[in-house]
């Protein structure tokens, strides 16, 4: 999936000042979402009861015998974790890679908001809702940044946000999951799915994954830009999300 990236690690690291700005700008509050977007998950939904969840987990999993025992052996580590719902914007990245005249290019969203709930014990019941403002899109060149808001590209006046909302999370074994749901860009909605690897380190959960979309599916790059010979149709989206409880 991430073959575009191999050999071209060109991820730029924001300076500390920029990180502070990013953190401040990240639309993590539901009231900042533009009208017309789906309601965002409430990050403060609460309701998590460790005791209830513990008994549920132990009873259902112990039925699996050895597998249950193996699982229980991880319990001390997992018991400390609740849900990982708070994005750490300064440590997280949302990148996209594409080819322009067959040259690998990489851009990123300078700010984005994501509402997660992820309980490691009940991954399938997790939820991810992403909102990424088109205005924060950095293609890597000022010239192109001036252009991406235009009607031919993202028409950001009319469609200011890219939006994704997970509908299913399927375990793929180990710490890998398949997350699927509708992705809306420029008024076009397509079902996308992405593999996600979850790594829990202490009180942080790190979600990594990448998936491909086609810009033509979202009418991104119309008119003279519609020809894939200059800017390729395939766009690789790559995310690295660091979250804390």
């Amino acid at each position, binding site marked *: 999936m991430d073959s575009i990236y191999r*050999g071209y690690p060109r991820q730029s690291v924001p300076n500390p000042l920029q990180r502070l700005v990013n953190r401040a700008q990240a639309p993590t509050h539901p009231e900042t979402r533009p009208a017309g977007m789906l309601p965002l998950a409430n990050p403060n939904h609460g309701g998590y009861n460790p005791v209830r969840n513990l008994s549920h987990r132990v009873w259902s999993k112990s039925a699996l015998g050895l597998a249950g025992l193996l699982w229980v052996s991880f319990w001390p580590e997992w018991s400390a974790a609740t849900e990982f719902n708070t994005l750490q914007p300064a440590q997280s990245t949302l990148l996209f890679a594409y080819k322009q*005249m067959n040259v690998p*290019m990489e851009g990123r969203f300078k700010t984005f908001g994501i509402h997660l709930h992820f309980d490691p014990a009940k991954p399938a019941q997790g939820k991810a809702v992403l909102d990424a403002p088109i205005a924060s899109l950095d293609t890597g*060149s000022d010239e192109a940044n001036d252009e991406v808001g235009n009607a031919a590209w993202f028409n950001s006046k009319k469609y200011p946000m890219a939006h994704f909302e997970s509908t299913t999370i399927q375990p793929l074994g180990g710490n890998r999951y398949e997350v699927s749901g509708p992705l809306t860009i420029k008024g076009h909605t397509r079902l996308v799915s992405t593999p996600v690897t979850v790594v829990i380190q202490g009180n942080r959960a790190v979600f990594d994954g990448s998936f491909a979309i086609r810009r033509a599916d979202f009418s991104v790059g119309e008119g003279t830009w519609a020809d894939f010979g200059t800017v390729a149709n395939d766009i690789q989206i790559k995310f690295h999300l660091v979250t804390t409880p």
Partner: protein
Amino acid sequence: MTSGAQSPNTHYTATAKGLHWFMALGLIGLFALGLYMADLHLSPWKLKLYSWHKWAGVSLFLLALVRLFWRLTHRPPELPGHMRFLERWLAHLGHAVLYLLLFAIPLSGWLMSSAKGVQTVYFGLWPIPDLLPKDKVLGDTLHEVHETLNWILALVVSGHALVALKHHFVDHDAVLRRMLPGISGKNQG
């Protein structure tokens, strides 16, 4: 050295002439293309021109290597005997600067592409490694360097051409003729 001490070399090889004129045309074309494309508004056409400019630039860089190799292994004809010390010194300096620019200009373009984060993929097929990590400020500086070096080249090439014409029309020597295609240059010392 190839012609031996007893018969001084009086002409350029066909290879040297071919490289000289092909690269002259290529450099003029690339210079004009560079001036034209830089001011265009962003469009697929502009992206194509930039790629073509880079591919042609890499080609001329490779030819410059061939040319340097040829120059080092084939002694060029002597300068005419009537030239004074200062003129000889200026001629050698001018040629040295031209050779230097044949390398410095594509190198500055390569560095600039790297710093601007737009790798060069030769003919869209072969990625050429970036020499620098992406750095916007450095990329803009290298843009200035690339442009300035090109204006210096334009100046030195103009001087080169004017002096060649002066040799032909004022000094009436063979300096210009011996570089022209189809003239062997023998007996024209």
